[in-house]
């Protein structure tokens, strides 16, 4: 009977003409898929990053008995709950669009990862939904002595979220670096017989997991900063301003803290991609994508400038900051850092131990030597240090952004567009690594100074320069823009393949779009995401603005509980 029914259905389908091919209006299919995928990734990054931020904040509040942290965690979770539905919506849309526009490839991929798509991922997503809502709705009931249980729930939520990320990264990374075939077998034959784990645990899987995990925390921190900025701008009382000023500071601190690791996670991902196939490296750095990386250098530089500018504005309002000083040897180390580390990494490329020794000496020697009697008084004011720091941030940005040639691909390079041969080192990885490390080191030094300032001085929350709120907005916007840019780069490294070197994309759109074209869409996507997030903030927080804020509006010693 069943066979009869199936047979008749088959006959019916055979008589019905093929549906017309799906064409995404205006943008074409490839850009259409990009838009939906990128939006999904942005929402997903938020709902994975924000809970990490929230549970850390909740734990800090519990440990320090400071209700501000608890309120911060709850407000971020509130926004997360609203945006969770957007993640599911865009995720569903992503699959529909993929199936309609690239049916053969999508079916192929689903079949290769059937267990992941049909069982593991949905189960994890459902589990995450249940735990997220439980976490949010038990906030008020699991307090006091039961608070530890609530924090444990938050940890569980993050474990499931991280696992979900790792699972879905498998097929994503597989598209970039499908498993390498065994000796003597072609890649096609190998993939046909490879098990699920062989395909999941591919070259770029773990680096992508780590990169996205750290990126999500950065993202969560900067979005918390954005929430704080919006709420600060709309605050009606000093108490509210005081609280949201503090929240912006914490968001920025966590965002920047994770940001410091991000360049190294990016290197790890790029390293594994190049290890998988060395031709990916020149394609990224010297061919069609080279100017995308030029733009990335500019964005990272701007983010570091802005985050340090926020520290500067925060410090300016601390009373007694002028008394804070730092060893002049740190200034010397910072000025010499790009040249010293650039040279060292050229002679001893990491991870050779000699380079690590030089690096450790450069970081450790200034504070150690400053204890010596003759050098103890060789100090500079915190403001001088930060100004030198800003100068070196500009220098490091310049090094990071200096390309081998101002051409979209090296094949088109001419003498008029290339670095002179004596300066070619400026465009190589040792110089770029040294620049990245200088940016990271300077940001750490600035935070150390800030920490000293708030311990010795008096901070007045709520009295920060209003420009700082625009800096927070700028940081979130730029972080999202950079995510969009690098997401495009990761996809474009596959060239004209759906799955690199394995499954070609035969459609007419399988080429690399220009950077200018990509920039328009990345900006558009960032704005769409911003509009939705802004709406979520307005309806969740502005509409139910806390009636009794806890934070003090009056000056208090910065270190006071």
């Amino acid at each position, binding site marked *: 009977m069943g066979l009869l029914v199936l047979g008749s259905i088959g006959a019916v389908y055979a008589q019905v003409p093929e549906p017309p091919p799906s064409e995404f209006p205006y943008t074409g299919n490839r850009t259409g898929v990009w838009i939906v995928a990128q939006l999904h990734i942005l929402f997903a990054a938020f709902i994975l990053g924000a809970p990490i931020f929230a549970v850390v904040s909740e734990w800090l509040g519990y440990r320090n008995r400071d209700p501000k942290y608890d309120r911060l965690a709850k407000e971020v979770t509130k926004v997360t709950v609203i945006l969770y539905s957007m993640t599911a919506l865009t995720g569903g849309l992503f699959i529909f669009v993929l199936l309609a526009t690239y049916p053969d490839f999508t079916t192929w991929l689903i079949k290769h990862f059937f267990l992941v798509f049909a069982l593991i991922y949905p189960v994890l997503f459902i589990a995450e939904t249940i735990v997220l809502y439980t976490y949010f709705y038990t906030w008020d009931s699991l307090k006091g002595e039961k608070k530890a249980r609530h924090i444990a729930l938050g940890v569980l939520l993050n474990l499931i979220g991280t696992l979900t990320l790792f699972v879905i990264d498998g097929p994503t990374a597989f598209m970039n670096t499908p498993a390498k075939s065994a000796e003597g077998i072609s890649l096609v034959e190998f993939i046909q017989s490879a098990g699920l784990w062989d395909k999941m645990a591919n070259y770029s899987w773990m680096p992508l997991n780590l990169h996205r995990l750290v990126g999500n925390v950065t993202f969560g921190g900067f979005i918390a900063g954005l929430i704080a900025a919006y709420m600060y701008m709309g605050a009606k009382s000093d108490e509210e301003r005081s609280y949201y000023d503090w929240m912006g500071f914490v968001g920025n601190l966590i965002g920047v803290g994770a940001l410091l690791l991000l360049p190294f996670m990016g290197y790890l991902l790029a390293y594994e991609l190049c290890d998988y*196939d060395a031709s990916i490296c020149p394609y990224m750095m010297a061919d069609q994508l080279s100017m995308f990386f030029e733009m990335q250098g500019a964005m990272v530089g701007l983010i570091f400038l802005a985050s340090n500018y926020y520290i500067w504005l925060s410090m300016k309002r601390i009373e007694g900051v002028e008394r804070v000083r730092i060893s002049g040897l740190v200034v010397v180390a910072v000025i010499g850092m790009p040249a010293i580390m650039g040279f060292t990494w050229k002679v001893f490329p990491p991870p050779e131990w000699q380079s690590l020794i030089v690096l450790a000496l450069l970081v450790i020697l200034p504070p150690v030597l400053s204890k010596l009697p003759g050098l103890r008084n060789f100090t500079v004011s915190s403001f001088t240090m930060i100004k030198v720091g800003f100068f070196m941030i500009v220098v490091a940005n*310049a090094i990071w952004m200096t390309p081998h040639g101002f051409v979209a691909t090296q094949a088109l390079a001419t003498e008029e567009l290339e670095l002179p041969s004596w*300066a070619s080192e400026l465009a190589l990885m040792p110089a770029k690594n040294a620049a990245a490390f200088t940016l990271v080191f300077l940001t750490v030094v600035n935070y150390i100074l800030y920490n000293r300032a708030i311990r010795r001085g008096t901070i007045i929350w709520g009295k920060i320069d209003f420009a700082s709120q625009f800096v927070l907005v700028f940081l979130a916007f730029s972080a999202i823009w950079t995510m969009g840019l690098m997401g495009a780069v990761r996809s474009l490294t596959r060239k004209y393949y759906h799955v690199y070197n394995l499954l070609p994309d035969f459609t007419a759109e399988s080429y690399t779009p220009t950077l200018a074209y990509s920039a328009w869409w990345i900006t558009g996507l960032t704005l769409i995401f911003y509009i939705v997030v802004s709406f979520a903030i307005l309806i969740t927080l502005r509409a139910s603005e806390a009636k009794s804020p806890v934070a003090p509006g009056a000056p208090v010693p910065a270190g006071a509980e």
Partner: protein
Amino acid sequence: MVQNGFARVVVKKLVFGVLVGIVLVVVAKLTHFPPVFQVMFFIYAMLGAFVFILLDAPSMKRLEGSKAVVGLILFYVIISGVYIAGATWLPQYDPEVEKGKIEKLLKARRARTKQGKVEELLARAKALDEKAQAIAKQLAALGGGAKVVAKVKVETEASSPTSSATSGDLVALGREQWELQECYNCHKLFGQGGKKRGPALDNIGNLMTPEQIRQKILNPKSWMAEGFEKAYKKGKMPNKYKDLMFPEEIDALVAFLSTLKDTSVNTPRPIKMQ
């Protein structure tokens, strides 16, 4: 008063930025940096000036209500514009170049898929039908009503790049493969491409036989270029061409490389490894 003070700071820092920029441009010119880099250095100097102006800027007045909303919208418009303009200002890769490459690369591959074969048959049937209709029209115009069986020769496109190649243009097809497989990203040839990732190949035809070149392409570990020990150990040359290229494409590439016999260029000596 504060405003005047800040205006003086802005002018002072801008002048200083311009001076530093000019010094950088002069030094860059003297040290043979091309003009585009001189412009870049000047921009960095101005960026530095802008940063130091920001550091000394007076506190911003609080914006409230609609002013804050307008301020935010304006801010978004400005940063969106700056990012788009920045990305547009940088050199752009022409997608048409890549489209041409992809078309050449994928055409032969698509033709070998089931769908490609069906499409080819459909295209041939369509072409036949059009020819037959055209002949029928011609016959009708001539007033003939007789049934004529026309022998129609339909030109079909080659299903592989070398199927119609003579030995003469095999080298040209090989050069095309050099471009399509982007060998130039690692190997310098005719003074272009490379950047020390792989050896220059201008004289490889004198150093390796066609069979040895084929071995190297199919199995990159089979030969090592002298002086490229590190790259060899790291497996820098991808071991993928045996899977990605059709045998006739490899034939063409080998034929092209075998013609490279420019002794004036130092091509490293190949060493047999496996």
